[in-house]
């Protein structure tokens, strides 16, 4: 189960905690890369990509 963030519950806004979000991201063990070469330039979200892990094959 995901951990719920408490600080906005009183306002009726429900979301998961950052640590849970990070945990979900890390489930795909090899997907946390930023690529090679010019990836150090700050190109925003389009810089992100996925190195296919065991979940990602055809």
């Amino acid at each position: 189960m995901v951990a719920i963030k408490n600080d906005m519950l009183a306002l009726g806004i429900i979301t998961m905690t950052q640590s849970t979000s990070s945990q979900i991201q890390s489930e795909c063990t090899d997907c946390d890369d930023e690529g090679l070469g010019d990836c150090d330039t700050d190109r925003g979200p389009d810089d992100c990509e996925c190195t296919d892990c065991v979940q990602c094959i055809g």
Partner: protein
Amino acid sequence: MKTFCESVIPFKMPYLYSERIGEYLLVYKPRADHKFLLLDKHAQQIFFACDGKRNLEKIYGFLENHGYKQEKIEATIVALNKEKILKVSDEISGDISLRQAFKRTFGIWLHVTNNCNLRCSYCYIDKNKGNMPLHIAERTVINAVEQCGKFGIENLSIKFAGGEPLMVWENIKHIINFAKKCCAPMNITPVFSIISNGTLVKKEIAEYLKNNKISIGVSLDGLRVVNDNQRFHQDGRGSFNEVYNGICVLKKAGCRPFILITVTSNNANGLQELTRFLLEHELNFRYSFERNCSRLLSTDDLIRDSLMYTEILSECFVNIEEWMLRKQWNFNIKLCDINLDRPISRSCGIGKNSAAIDHGGRIALCQMVFNESIGHIGKIGLIEAIQNQQIIPELRKKTINDCLECSQCIWKNVCAGGCPVFTYKQRGAINLPSPYCKVFQTLIPKVVRLRGVKLIRSYEEQKGDKTWLP
């Protein structure tokens, strides 16, 4: 003191996906930080009142007439503004930094054998008895580690595949030990995984995987005859019983294999049954569409398959949701390369940070194009080979924005256009939407909904409410 001037007109951020689930409104941000939020009925009313036409003064007046206190309205709008659901003031930028402190990874697909005990109907590997000699495997590891050092990469992902990699299990163990020794002095973290057909799993193998934290993907396309119709031995015998046994051995050892389902027109009708089976066995899984690169799909074939996949997988997702309401487990279900958790602009690392090496040491962009070598591990660095390749040069700089149609799609940073090789082989260019684009557009919201249901269940359980049904 008021946070915002009352003359300001708040509006909803563009490219939000929202769907009502029970009494909640699920809001997902596929073009931003990929965050999921639920709004209860009060937060929803405030959210919908911010329609881009009324200023805050009118919104306060309207909502106060419905019994809301201004303090709560304002606090909610501030929170929604902070979460980038609403945009209230230009003083708070709508742009957020999506770059995260991820470590960089280079991935290699190590084709440790070209031999396989199965002859699956859709397999694109031209099989023979050839195994990757250990000196080739070692040279590949050295090459990869040197390249990681040269390019400042911290993680090296080695995926053992084939053929059936467990046919050369002793070699795999040798390569793992060798890679660990090579990586340690370079401060590179090796990560290992195996793509297997699951028929050759033994207790010793399962325990080794568990003890060494090595993940394993096992292919399974259906129950019994459905699987056996497309995953069979050379003599025609089906593989289901052996695969099921392999999965049981892995689970008994404490491994949780990731099940890889290849969806074809032949097994689609058995997917609901398979899905229920995997849920009952608490196995994570992925649906992948068959990617035949050796022949062009006709428009009729593509339409037929797309309609079939959409209809059947939609039913599977309904079944999964029903299951989630009755049972509880921390599932991970994937649809092809779509990524709900963080924005992507490429569906995989092809042409940039991954390579496939066949059993003879020839380098390829990926395992689907082993016949189009871009060098040999004895002659060129892996990353340099990728950077200099002329097979699909556009891959080096490809982002999803290169495709006009994709660049305007709400899901562009979720699917990233799908498999570029499949698109290239089927449509002649990579800067086009996937042949399965319409399937993705229909199914992605259903996967998003599952996340919403998971979030609601977690919240309701935290509250102690066991009676909730959407």
